[in-house]
């Protein structure tokens, strides 16, 4: 059974703190993604990675950075948390099939509140 896990389900941080969100997948997938979900805005892509030590910006990368030192682990970093980064953060992964099928598998999400 495929599995994507995220380090925390709920997190409360203070404005200005550095925040690390961790994601681990056990499917040997090459591709990993970080999204945030906000009411009325759907899922928006923050960053993604096609391979170890490789990253690309998504649609809303401002205020975030990422790290992928190992294939199974993809970290999202909020350098200096702000209240507008309060959101549900979702990690996903998918394999490189070489074909058209791009089903992504999601983790359970981290609900981050920045006070």
């Amino acid at each position, binding site marked *: 059974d495929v599995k994507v896990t995220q380090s925390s389900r709920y997190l409360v941080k203070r404005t200005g703190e550095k925040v690390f969100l961790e994601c681990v997948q056990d499917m040997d997938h090459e591709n990993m993604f970080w*999204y945030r979900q906000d009411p009325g805005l759907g*899922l928006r892509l923050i960053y*993604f990675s096609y391979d170890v030590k490789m990253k690309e910006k*998504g649609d809303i990368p401002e205020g975030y950075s990422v790290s992928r030192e190992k294939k199974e682990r993809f970290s999202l970093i909020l350098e200096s948390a702000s209240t507008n980064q309060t959101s549900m953060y979702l990690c996903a992964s998918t394999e490189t099939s070489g074909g*058209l099928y*791009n*089903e*992504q*598998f*999601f983790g359970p999400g981290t609900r981050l509140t920045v006070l």
Partner: protein
Amino acid sequence: DQQVKQNSPSLSVQEGRISILNCDYTNSMFDYFLWYKKYPAEGPTFLISISSIKDKNEDGRFTVFLNKSAKHLSLHIVPSQPGDSAVYFCAASHGSNYKLTFGKGTLLTVNP
């Protein structure tokens, strides 16, 4: 520019009836479409998909229809059950690009 649009934020249906969720897209390069279901406080789970070479794909109570000329797809759930109550996201991709573009979601409520 919103490339995948779900124009109905919410939908309410009676148990046993058909639920129809709609999705429109603007990017003609999209060739693969997916529907995800999301319960509160959980990650989205894959429901059903369709490639652009087909116009229909069925999996149990779930059927997705694709109308390429209208750039429109729909998800039919028959019969609807209270456990189907969730937010449904439409997503699209093209070629070997592993990125998915998501719609804003539709909250489906199935009333007993």
